[in-house]
């Protein structure tokens, strides 16, 4: 081992369970990534949808207009179905922590676990009150019913905060010491409130509103183009679009904050975003192209001088750390990270513009845009925001590699020694395909019921 700064401590962490490293951690990573990719979009609905239907119910309470009630009730029913799917996909994640990463859990469970304790409580609260809310329509007094929705919104926030706190900690581990290869002196609250959590929570929280808002708006934009332009559909479209359009321009600013934080604590990840090989000042930002390992640079990209230095440190003369500051085995896979990063940026910019367009029209002309193209764009924005979301997660999580706990434990040290991962992997893929088919079928079924039925009592 070379004398090589902070990373030295890393190699010293002995696996608590004494398993030895497992070179084919790739399957475990892919299973985990697949499960997260299934669960994270559902989380977006958990974050944003309750606030949306509660907002609409608030309109109903103020105006007494049954259209609002029908919409809030319909949305809450959809939210319950999505929540149920989130319950099972989230459960899979907690199984996978143990099934795939027993060394990680055994070594660090006592450091980050308390955050999950809070998550468990949030999840519990959410499960209790979403059931009361959805099954309580018409059964509880109007005011009590509205109030039972509030814990759902709060728990959606605290639940995602605590899970993100653990993810942020994996990227910026603190709150423990390593002594002779053993993790000691855990300080759970230092771990929870690490430097990465703040931008991660805001970034993800806004992403929740963007994804949920645009996906829901996309459904009604399609209805709009098909000529269903009654009050019900119009309200649904405007509310969903408003949430998404408020969040998407702000996300640009938060993204800038996130990038600067990464530049500070994970310079290598930033270098991977950009395929920057050599440490330098006035670092350029390269649009498109791909990174050639052999030549150590991005080919066929459009280079914008100084921009990376400006973005990362708001200073064209700032020095950006390059990939060659560490040996090749300590670098993340450049192309995956870079392409994911650029995809997120591109889509995010598009969504921000679409949101701004909606707002300008709405505020200045007090109506929805008339162009057919706008509605097609909104329909596209749903799936696009989904792609941006997953790209963002690939950026940060693949960008963290080869570490599971940044510069402390390698991913291949964390993985299970149990055989048969590939069988489990195949099984899991089939199950998720079936689940996706089921959800699609169910949401179409729900959408085909006329909204009038929601208030027919």
């Amino acid at each position, binding site marked *: 081992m070379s004398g090589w700064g902070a990373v030295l401590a890393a190699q010293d962490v002995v696996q608590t369970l004494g398993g030895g490293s497992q070179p084919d951690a790739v399957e475990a990573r892919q299973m985990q990534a697949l499960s997260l990719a299934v669960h994270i979009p559902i989380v977006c609905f958990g974050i944003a949808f309750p606030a949306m239907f509660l907002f609409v119910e608030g309109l109903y309470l103020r105006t007494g207009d049954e259209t609002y009630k029908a919409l809030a009730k319909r949305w809450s029913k959809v939210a319950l179905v999505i929540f*149920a799917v989130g319950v099972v996909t989230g459960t899979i994640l907690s199984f996978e922590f143990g099934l795939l990463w027993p060394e990680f859990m055994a070594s660090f469970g006592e450091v980050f*676990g308390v955050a999950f304790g809070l998550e468990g409580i949030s999840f519990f609260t959410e499960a209790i009150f979403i059931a009361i809310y959805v099954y309580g329509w018409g059964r509880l007094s109007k005011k009590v019913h509205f109030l039972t929705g509030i814990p759902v919104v709060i728990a959606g926030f605290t639940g995602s905060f605590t899970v993100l706190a653990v993810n942020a900690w994996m990227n910026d581990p603190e709150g423990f010491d390593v002594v002779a290869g053993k993790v000691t002196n855990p300080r759970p609250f230092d771990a929870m409130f690490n430097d990465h959590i703040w931008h991660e929570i805001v970034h993800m929280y806004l992403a929740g509103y963007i994804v949920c808002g645009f996906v829901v708006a996309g459904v009604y934009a399609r209805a709009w183009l098909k000529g269903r332009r009654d009050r019900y559909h119009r309200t649904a479209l405007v509310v969903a679009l408003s949430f998404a359009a408020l969040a998407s321009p702000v996300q640009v600013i938060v993204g800038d904050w996130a990038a600067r934080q990464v530049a500070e604590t994970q310079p290598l990840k930033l270098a991977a975003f950009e395929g920057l090989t050599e440490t330098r000042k006035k670092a350029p930002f390269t649009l498109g192209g791909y990174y050639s390992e052999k030549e150590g640079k991005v080919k066929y990209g459009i280079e914008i001088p100084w921009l990376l230095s400006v973005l990362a440190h708001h200073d064209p003369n700032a020095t950006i750390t390059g990939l060659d500051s560490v040996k090749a085995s300590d670098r993340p896979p450049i192309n995956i990270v870079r392409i994911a990063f650029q995809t997120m940026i591109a889509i995010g910019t598009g969504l921000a513009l679409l949101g701004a367009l909606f707002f300008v029209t709405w505020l200045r002309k007090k109506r929805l845009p008339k162009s057919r193209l706008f509605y097609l764009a909104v329909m596209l924005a749903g799936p696009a925001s989904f792609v941006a979301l997953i790209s963002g997660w690939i950026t940060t999580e693949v960008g963290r590699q080869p570490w599971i706990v940044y510069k402390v434990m390698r991913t291949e040290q964390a993985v299970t020694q149990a055989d048969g991962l590939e069988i489990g992997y195949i099984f899991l893929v089939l199950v998720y395909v079936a689940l996706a088919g089921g*959800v699609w079928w169910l949401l179409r079924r729900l959408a085909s019921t006329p909204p009038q039925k929601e208030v027919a009592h």
Partner: protein
Amino acid sequence: MAEICLAYVILGVTAYAIFGGADFGAGFWDLTAGTARGGGRVRGMIQRSMAPVWEANHVWLIFLFVIVWTAFPVAFGSIFSTLSIPLFLAAIGIIFRGAAFVFRGQAATMREAKVLGAMFALSSVLIPYFFGAAAGGIASGRVKVGNAAGDMIDSWVNPTSALIGVLAVVTGANVAAVYLAGDSERAEQPDLVEAFRRRALGSGLLAGLVAIGGLFVVRSDARDLFDGLTSGTGLIMVIVSAVGGAATLALVLTRRFNLARVTSGVAVAAICVGWVFAQDPYFLPGELTLEQAAASDATLTALTVVVALGMIILIPSLYYLYRLVLKGQLDQEFEPLDQRFRPLEAGGSPPPKAGH
């Protein structure tokens, strides 16, 4: 501190065994309800009873996981790597159970409801079996400390695992039948009250027989566990469980379902608590004592405080949910599951018909 966190573990195991177990038990009765038409009423009642509560009941499992991986991380890693097969199968079962149950609620044709119902019901039987088998592997000392250090197969394919797996299925079915009999009474469906009462009596007797026979299995397969269950606090808990089971039978026989809800829960809780006392001082029998398994004090303290504060929110919330449920305020209209898919018979509602 380790003791308090162990108490949280017991709470998680017990609550999941009772409430989660009852939901799985409902799935068992769904599976065995017979033809679409004959079992339609039983299935309708199950759908109606489970819908508002199964998600909250399920969260006890997550609660349990979180406590174990935070307070007893080495044990968590060892258990999940050695018992990865039954736990993976249980996890897959959980996807099918939850999703199929929710999807069935929206089914539009009998065919759809049948396929989804079969998926829901079958996984409801398999999940408690695999969890029980995993628990049997732990209790009989087959989980070794290390990354997949125990035998991948023998750790869950063994007499104790088979016993606890079967016991988990049967006791869940029993608790479910008691609850459903009570729910049917509230829904004023006398034929269903009878149907579930018979099921409660049958499954209660069976659970008792399996438990008694099981003592012999444990005696030959896991002697330490047997000794723990037949002495000291372990023995007291076994007796409490037996009394709870007997009382449940008597109460169901005399149609006092609301009290029977409590005693059937006590019977399950006592056996969970008894298990923990039986393997004292071990967390992983023969391998890791509670003291060795416990995380650092700072973590245990933080977890204790966080969960205690959480309980201040959770207990009133759960109380509110169950009170609304038991007062019938979240009840949906009762509807036999098969009836949704056919026009009502002439003359309005169909004649009441027993489940078989």
